[in-house]
Structure formats: structure tokens, C-alpha cells
């Protein structure tokens, strides 16, 4: 704050935007502009069709030069849209870019009401608030921040893999952290992918191998991020690498230990409980990395101190089995972080009337995926829970937990398509079987998707448009005996139907990870009510978040299919690569600073900075904000009881003037003589 501004002498230019009809349809923009012309400090006030157009920006630039404006207010859209545009226009006119303030009379005004009188009055209040604020604006200089070229990708599903490979292939180092023992994510569990029916593993595993072997990738599986400090360009990450009890340097992945392990447990993760795995295991044959992991909870050696079969039979020298291994905490620096933490499937037991867990032959989509998978527990045969009988009729229930007021209101986007795929696979494997798809609406938008639906219509799948009320085994007529009966209202014929089938497949909603809230707090970014991470802009900035340097990709942002996840992973990588290539970015100079002469050293502020930017000088007994670390959140500014911490661009003068300005028509006269 080198040049001191004098609010009395400021010359403000006010520009009220029509935004075509977006604003002008409800707000009388001409009236606002005329009214503003008579306000104190206002030198010129205009309205214009599109302020963001080149011609609109030129108006600002010319007025600065010709009328000697010192401050500029544009009343238009959200600063998220065009604050930068107008700051740059001010700069071209010769002003410091921070001599600008934006009044949002679109998102906060014209889009919220049809009441023209109220909207115009609010536009005046917002514009006046901006004028009264801007006269207190101080010139600020942007701060350069260097970008560490390394990137952290959290999550090894297809979105994370896509992001990681894009960056690594562009020559940048990536740390990939995956909490499971292998990368691959949900896609590794799937059999075919719609609508082309590519073998999921066949297209995924080459990419997994690439990740595992890439010189630019440090792959940390069986690991979780525990702590994230820092900011765009300069994050420090702590990762807990859980003990695998297998030495990754010595292990050759031969698998003899797995073979020799004498104990089996149900494989609840990869095979969703349909088969068993050994206690030392690798989730599936193509797992990357190839090293097995010991399931400590179930390991007889860990529980009872005896066995060690894996160690005894391990052929490597030195032996790869290390029972004494402990969790390791790794710490490294990265410039950017991409979160691709994926999704959970809705727990279908929450809808008891669908019978899952109670009625043996009700399956989940993931169970069916494993079942039809050639490398799955039944080697691709579709069988009932007894693992041998072939169903003669199958009902597939869409929208289980999706589009449902009681569970998730949103559409999970992929279920219609994979439900169609299931129908196709049943036709293919059991040609004589009757297949019923019970759907609310058939949603097949995507390349080749509608064609796939048509194909299923031709394959004579029975489509019943209606939400399934219940799945029961209580027969009413002899034909229903021993069957599962799907009770559904067929809304196309306007009648209740009871469809007796041998097998029911539930297509559950995709939902946010159970711990998505904690993850969002760990990375200091937002998640919505459903737990999905929030993008910076739903249309124009879908992979960035409100936290600089943190990007999101794939189903952690919302339900998504494989192609969308891959595209988002690549998009996030492109954003990161752009920053790495720049090397240095200019950051908002909105930072806190402590007046060193007036600080009493009370130590209120010292432990509340989320970025650890405040240090205490023991010798002088005062606190100081390290500007490079400060992110301008304002926590310390609000907390400082002496008022000696100032938040640049958010000073008391600026905020109080803005508040008074917005209340211009109701503010009391100053209480003085």
C-alpha cells in the first residue's frame, strides 16, 4: 500500500451492463445508470448492452484516459465471470487492476426475481455499495508463486490413471496414491463396457501396466494421504504407506506365497463376497503392482503367532515376507493435486423391500459383473446363489436408490446403460431366458447408447416402465411358487404387474465415498450435500475446485461412466500441465499483514492459521504473517482483537463502506451533534 488513496478525491466511472436481456429484462439499467451519475465521487455513469465485449471494455479504457477516472465499478454479472476481464481493462487504461469493483446485478438480482421495481432498487443498492467500497480500494501488486512440477494424483481408478498417464507422458513426475493394494478401481471389476462391449480388463490393464512401469510415476498403493499443507504450487503431502508385510524390492510377484497360504477368507472387496481369497493375496491376477499383501486381521501368524507358510516357501533371497514391517509415513512436495477418489455403490440393504440379503437370488450389479466375468468366481456362468442352477428368467431393477426422494434424488447416469448391458449378457449366455428391465425412464444419451437400447429391443428384452415396489417370495398363485415375484406398476399399460422370475439384479445408485467429507476437509475443498466434490464452475470449469491447485476428476465429482471419467482425468492433467509449463503463476495479492508496531503479542492468531503462515518473533514479542504462505482467508483478521491484522482488499473501511452503501436508503444519519 504505497500510494495512499483519498476517498474524497476519487473519480469513479460506473458501467451498468444490460447483459443482452439477462439483466435489462428485469432491471431498469438506464435508470440505475442515471441515478448513479449523481452519487458522490461518480464522474461518469453509463449503461451498455454488453460490458464484457471489446467495445464495452474500450468504454472503460477511454474514460480512464479521457476523464481521469481513478476507480471503476461495473454492475453486471458475478465476479467469477468477468472480474478478471474488467481488471485487465482497467490495467490497459493505466489503473492498478485492484482499483476496480464489481456489483453483481445478474446472479444476485435479475435472475432471482421478476419484480422489476424490486430488482431495480436492489441494483441501485448493489451499485452504490460497490461505489462506496471502491473509493477505499488501494493499489495492490500480484504475487508470483513458483509451481512445483510434481503432481499428486489420489485414486488409482480409471480417472486417476488417465490423469496420471497424461502428465507422466508429458514428462512430468506424478505420485499416485491408492488406498487398495492395487490400482484399477471399479473398472477392473467390470466385465464388458457399454455400449461397445469391449472387455473392460482388456482395455484397462495395459494402462495399469503403463502406470506401474512408467519412469515418471511413483506408485504408492495400499497407501493413504494423511496430511496436506501448503497451497497452489507448493503443497507438502504426508502419505501413510500401510505395511504390506511384503518387501517390494525383493518380491518377484511369483505368487508361491499365495499358493502356499493355508487359509482362505471371503473376498468381500474384489469378488464382492462371491468367492474366497487367500489371507496373503493379490486382488486379481493382473493387479498392479504385482506384490501381494497380507491381510493382518485374518493372518494366523499375526493372530496366533504360528504358520509363516508364506515366509517359509518364499523363494526370493533375501526373503520377501517381512512380518515386522510397519506403516511408513512418506512426505513429499507437489505443485498440484488431482483427486480421483471414485464412488461407492449404494447399499441396497437400505431398501429392505427389494429383499437383498434376505432373498438369496437377489443380486447387486457388481455381483453380476463378477459373475459374468470370465475370470470371475463362476468363470462367466450366470447362476443362482447355489452357484449351479441357471436362471430361466431375470429381472433387472433400475434406479435402486437413485431418483428416489428417500435416498438419492439424482440420476446415477450409468445404470440404464449397464442394466441394458446386463440384459444383453443374459440373452447372450442364456438365450432361452426371459429378461425384464424395470425402469422409470430410459436414459441413454451418449454416442452409440440409444442404438444399444434399440439393439436390446430387438433382442426382445421385456421393458416395463415403472418403479419396482417390492421383490418378494410370497406366492399368490401356483405359477409364482418358488420364484421371486417383482411387483411393479407398468405405467404404460396402467396396471400393476407381478413378474415371477428366478433372479433379480438390483442396479444401485452411485454415491459419494463414505469418507468424502473427510477427504474434502483434508484437501480444504468443498463437497455438496450428497458428498460429491464441488467443481469451480459446473460448465466452464468442471475439473477445477475453489481451492487453487486442487483438481477433481471422475465419479468423485458426480456419477460418471468410463469415457467421461477418462476425459475428466485428461482434462485435469491438462490444467495441471499448463501450470507446470508456466512455472510461475501470479496470485491474488489478497493477503493478511500484521502491523509490527501495534501488535501486542497476545498470541490469539498464532495457532488458527490453516496455512501455518503466522510466526511469532520471540525477541520482539510480535507476530508476523509470512506473505508467501498466506492464502488470504481472513481468519486471523477477524480474530485479531486489537485490529492490527489487515486483510488487503478487505479492509474495515472497504467492508463497512460497502455495507453502508448497500443500506443507503435506510441508513440513519450519523449520530452526532
Amino acid at each position, binding site marked *: 500500500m504505497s500510494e495512499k488513496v483519498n476517498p474524497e478525491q476519487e473519480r469513479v466511472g460506473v458501467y451498468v451492463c444490460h447483459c443482452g436481456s439477462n439483466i435489462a429484462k428485469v432491471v431498469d439499467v438506464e435508470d440505475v445508470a442515471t441515478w448513479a451519475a449523481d452519487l458522490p465521487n461518480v464522474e461518469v455513469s453509463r449503461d451498455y448492452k454488453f460490458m464484457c465485449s471489446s467495445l464495452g471494455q474500450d468504454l472503460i479504457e477511454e474514460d480512464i484516459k479521457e476523464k481521469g477516472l481513478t476507480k471503476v465499478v461495473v454492475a453486471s454479472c458475478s465476479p467469477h465471470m468477468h472480474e478478471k476481464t474488467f481488471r485487465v481493462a482497467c490495467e490497459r487504461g493505466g489503473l492498478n487492476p485492484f482499483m476496480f469493483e464489481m456489483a453483481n446485478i445478474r446472479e444476485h438480482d435479475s435472475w432471482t426475481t421478476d419484480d422489476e421495481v424490486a430488482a431495480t432498487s436492489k441494483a441501485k443498492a448493489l451499485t452504490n455499495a460497490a461505489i462506496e467500497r471502491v473509493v477505499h480500494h488501494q493499489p495492490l501488486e500480484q504475487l508470483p508463486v513458483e509451481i512445483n512440477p510434481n503432481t499428486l494424483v489420489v485414486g488409482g481408478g480409471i480417472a486417476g490413471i488417465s490423469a496420471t498417464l497424461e502428465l507422466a507422458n508429458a514428462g512430468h513426475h506424478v505420485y499416485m496414491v491408492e488406498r487398495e493394494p492395487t490400482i484399477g478401481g471399479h473398472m477392473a471389476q467390470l466385465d464388458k463396457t457399454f455400449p461397445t462391449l469391449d472387455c473392460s480388463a482388456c482395455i484397462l490393464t495395459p494402462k495399469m501396466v503403463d502406470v506401474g512401469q512408467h519412469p515418471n510415476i511413483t506408485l504408492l498403493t495400499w497407501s493413504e494421504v494423511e496430511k496436506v499443507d501448503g497451497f497452489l504450487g507448493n503443497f507438502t503431502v504426508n502419505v501413510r504407506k500401510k505395511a504390506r508385510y511384503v518387501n517390494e524390492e525383493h518380491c518377484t510377484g511369483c505368487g508361491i506365497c499365495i499358493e502356499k497360504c493355508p487359509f482362505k477368507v471371503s473376498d468381500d472387496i474384489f469378488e464382492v463376497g462371491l468367492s474366497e481369497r487367500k489371507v496373503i493375496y493379490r486382488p486379481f491376477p493382473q493387479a498392479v503392482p504385482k506384490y501381494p499383501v497380507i491381510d493382518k486381521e485374518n493372518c494366523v501368524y499375526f493372530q496366533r503367532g504360528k504358520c509363516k507358510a508364506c515366509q517359509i516357501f518364499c523363494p526370493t533371497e533375501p526373503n520377501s515376507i517381512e512380518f515386522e514391517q510397519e506403516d511408513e509415513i512418506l512426505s513429499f512436495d507437489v505443485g498440484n493435486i488431482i483427486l480421483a477418489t471414485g464412488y461407492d455403490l449404494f447399499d441396497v440393504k437400505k431398501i429392505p423391500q427389494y429383499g437383498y440379503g434376505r432373498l438369496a437370488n437377489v443380486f447387486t450389479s457388481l455381483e453380476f459383473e463378477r459373475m459374468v466375468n470370465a475370470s470371475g468366481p463362476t468363470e462367466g456362468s450366470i447362476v443362482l446363489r447355489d452357484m449351479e442352477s441357471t436362471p430361466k428368467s431375470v429381472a433387472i431393477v433400475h434406479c435402486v436408490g437413485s431418483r428416489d426422494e428417500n435416498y438419492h434424488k439424482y440420476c446415477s447416469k450409468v445404470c440404464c446403460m449397464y442394466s441394458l448391458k446386463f440384459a444383453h449378457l443374459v440373452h447372450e449366455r442364456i438365450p432361452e431366458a426371459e429378461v425384464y428391465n424395470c425402469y422409470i425412464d430410459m436414459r441413454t444419451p451418449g454416442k452409440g447408447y440409444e442404438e444399444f437400447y434399440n439393439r436390446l429391443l430387438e433382442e426382445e428384452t421385456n421393458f416395463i416402465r415403472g418403479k419396482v415396489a417390492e421383490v418378494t417370495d410370497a406366492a399368490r398363485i401356483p405359477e409364482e411358487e418358488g420364484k421371486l415375484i417383482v411387483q411393479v406398476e407398468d405405467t404404460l399399460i396402467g396396471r400393476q404387474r407381478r413378474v415371477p422370475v428366478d433372479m433379480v439384479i438390483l442396479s444401485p445408485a452411485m454415491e459419494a465415498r463414505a469418507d468424502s467429507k*473427510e477427504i474434502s*476437509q483434508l484437501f480444504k475443498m468443498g463437497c455438496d450435500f450428497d458428498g460429491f466434490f464441488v467443481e469451480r464452475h459446473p460448465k466452464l470449469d468442471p475439473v477445477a475446485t475453489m481451492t487453487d491447485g486442487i483438481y477433481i476428476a471422475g465419479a468423485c465429482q458426480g456419477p460418471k461412466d468410463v469415457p467421461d471419467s477418462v476425459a475428466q482425468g485428461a482434462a485435469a492433467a491438462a490444467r495441471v500441465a499448463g501450470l507446470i509449463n508456466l512455472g510461475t503463476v501470479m496470485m491474488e495479492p489478497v493477503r493478511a499483514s500484521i502491523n509490527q*508496531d*501495534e*501488535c*501486542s*503479542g*497476545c*498470541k*490469539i*492468531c*498464532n*495457532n*488458527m492459521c490453516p496455512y501455518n503462515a503466522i510466526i511469532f518473533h520471540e525477541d520482539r*514479542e510480535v507476530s508476523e504473517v509470512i506473505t508467501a504462505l498466506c492464502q488470504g482467508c481472513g*481468519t486471523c483478521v*477477524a*480474530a*485479531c*482483537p*486489537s*485490529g*492490527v491484522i489487515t486483510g488487503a482488499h478487505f479492509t*474495515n473501511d472497504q467492508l*463497512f463502506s460497502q455495507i453502508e452503501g448497500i443500506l443507503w436508503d435506510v441508513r*440513519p444519519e450519523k*449520530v*452526532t*451533534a
Partner: protein
Amino acid sequence: MSEKPKLAMYWGSACGGCEISVLNIHEHILAVDEIFDIAFFPCIADFKVHHVESYDDGYIDVCLWNGAIRNSENEEMAHLLRKKSKVMVAYGSCAYEGCIPALSNLTSKEATFNTVYHDNQSIDNPEGIVPLTEVEVAEGTLTLPEFYNTVKSLDQVVDVDYYLPGCPPEPPQIWAVLQVIVAGLLEGAPLPPAGSVVGVTNVAVCEECERVKSEKNIEKFYRPYQINPDPEQCLLEQGVVCMGLATNGGCGALCPQVGMGCRGCYGPLPGVEDQGAKMLSAVASVIGAGDHSMEEAELEEKIQAVVDTIADPAGTFYRFSMSHSMLRRAKVNGSNGKGEA
């Protein structure tokens, strides 16, 4: 009268402590007597209002006004003395920012009267008599000043040249300020700019407090009788609400250094609009309750439990500054009190 500068001191709504504090500057009081002629000082010398009214405008060189503006007499006298004085000093916390009298801005005149004249165990008022501004008696009309709804600070009624905070101000500060003013009046030395708060350090009381400060995490607040605080450690860290952090220094941190939390009588630091809000914000920032893993509702409950241990938050954080605060007063009968007296 001689050519000595003229000194006046008068009280509005006050306890009398400010007058005593002037007399409490020890041997310097003799110097005051030597330097000044007393022009009006009802506490120590017999003057009447008509004496003041008879003075020329600006006749009084320095007027030390103490006390808040609670009724029409206070306001009338403030205007009169302002007119007759060259330098008007808001002396003490009541004149500066309302102080204890202004806490009644949290209620209304009616409620105050009710407590004082009706609903109070020590009251015997069967006829329900309350003060009236006018009453007719056989001899004629008797009048009383009007009791206002809102207690104001001196500067909310007249222009004020200097503020000398404190409840009451501390003797060394009083003497220092008088010396500056005397030097200005007699020797033409530069005076502080009008509107200055004088007799303060403009750094928080903590600067003068010898207690050891560390990072704060408060899990429970204590009232003074509930705790025997550690003599070395910062009081706030021990859960004693100490306003020192949000209070202008100059007093020498007398209270906290003897184990009593600073009450905040020297008022806010420069640039702080609202001392109470600032302190609340600071305290809220260091409440140690729950952790990030908790659900919002649970966390809120934990925080609330800690906050509930603060007795009388308004009276604690706004003990001295209600008139000057952004709150200013509670609503009265649906009005926000902005227009009425």
C-alpha cells in the same frame, strides 16, 4: 480574575469516580491549582449554571466532561459547556463510550423505571410514583429533566476534542495529558490533533502485561470467584475473560497483573469499530471444543457448552463500549432506537 487558563469539570451520568480521579493525582493537584483558575467544578467548588451561562463563548480553556448523556439535563449542560469551552475533553469511559450507564441500552426506559421504581424487593412504592418531567403542585409547576431511552456518549451529542479513556483514567495518564494541554495553552506547544484519544499507548494492554502468553485453546471460562489463577500465565488462557487483548493500553495492565481479567475500560484499539465484537471474534477463534472429525451438530453442541460458561456476554464484552458499539442499543417497541433520544 487572573489571566490563568480556566478549567471546568462537570458530570453527566456518572458515578463521581472521575472527579475523584482528578483529585487523586497526588501532589500534582497543587500544580493544577497553580496553573488553572477553576471556572466550574461543582464537586469541589460552589458554582451555579448561571455562572457558566454568564461566561463568554470559549471563556473556559479546558472542560473535562465526565459521565454519559442519560437525560436532558446532561445534554443541555453538554451543549452549554461545549459553547463556553475551547477544548472539550471526554473524560473517562462514560463520556468516551457510554460505559456502565450505557448497558441500559440493552433494555428500555420503561424497563429501567420498572426495576427502579416498581419491581424490586427494596422498593416501597404503593402509589406507583415515577419521575415525571412536569408535575403540577399548589405552588406551581415542578420540572425534572427527561430521562432518555438511550444513553449516549458525549461525542454523540457535541463535538469532542480529546478522549481520555479509563474507568477512571489512571493518575499518570491524567497528569501527562494535563501537561500536554497546559504546554499547548501556555507555551503554544503543538496539541494532539482534534479527535485524538489521549493517555493511551495505542497497543493492546497485553503489551504492558508481564504474564506469559502462549497459543490459546480455551475449554471453559471462569468467573473471578471460581478460579485462583496461575500468577504467571496469561489469564485468558486460563479461562478468565481478559479484555486486555482488545483494549487500548496505558493503564499499565494493573488488573490482569493482580489476577483480575482486564475489564476493557480503556476502550478499543485504533481502527477497531466495535471492541465487544472484536473480543468476541477473538474468543470464538480460540475455543477448544471438539475436532474436525465431528459432525457439525455435535461440534456446535460442544462449542455451545463452552460458550455457555461465559456469564453475561453483553455485559462482559460491551461493559464500557455499548454507546460506541455497532449494536448501540436493543430494539425498543419495534423501533431500532435510531431516531429517538
